[in-house]
């Protein structure tokens, strides 16, 4: 079985996701410094505009991948009993997957194109 997030690939995932998230955070902060949305309408229309929405979707995908690689490293370093380690992987994996589904729901039609 090919493990997707180990070794060199995990290293690369961690760095590419970091670079993307860093750019997105800078972009987000600049928007708030220059033209902070002061009302619900302004905030929603900015967030749900197709450009920002897609960029945010990629941001959260990067966040989840980054969190997985990081937490996996922490688990491998500190949790040695096999069963406990496996349980930790399952816990983190389920948690991140659920978070991903939640984000997809937030960023999909729910608040945006509906109304």
């Amino acid at each position, binding site marked *: 079985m090919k493990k997707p997030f180990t070794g060199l690939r995990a290293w690369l995932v961690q760095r590419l996701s*970091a670079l993307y998230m860093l750019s997105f955070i800078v972009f987000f902060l600049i928007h708030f410094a220059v033209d902070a949305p002061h009302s*619900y*309408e302004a*905030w929603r229309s900015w967030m749900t505009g197709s450009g920002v929405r897609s960029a945010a979707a990629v941001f959260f995908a990067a966040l989840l991948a980054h969190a997985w690689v990081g937490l996996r490293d922490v688990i491998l370093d500190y949790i040695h009993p096999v069963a406990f380690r496996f349980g930790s992987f399952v816990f983190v994996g389920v948690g991140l997957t659920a*978070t991903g589904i939640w984000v997809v729901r*937030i960023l999909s039609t729910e608040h945006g194109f509906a109304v």
Partner: protein
Amino acid sequence: MAEANKRRPVFFNLTQIQMPVGALTSIGHRVTGVLLAVSAPFGIYLLDLSLQDPRSYARVVSYFDQWALRVVAIVLVWVLAHHLLAGTRHLLSDADIGSQLPAARRSAWFVNVGGIAVALLAAGALL
């Protein structure tokens, strides 16, 4: 050789080991990373609320009128700032920028102090 290794004293009392400044940067990077992973769902919850309707948006804004939540926000600003600065230091070091010890020490200080400085700025803005 293996026998000798086994008999070596192990001294891992972190409160007594003299840690170089880079060690604090590195431990901080790890601790803040775990804290960010733990706080992410709360951030996503706020994002969800803020986009639902004007009333829940107002609720999110009113959360930050609370003194306790402002303190949490400031701590999280430090957490994020330290993680981003330490991560950037890592990326630069991947590109072989600042890998030499004197430069690495300086950048480690910069990261540790910079994270706190950003948090103090946030405190100034929020409190």
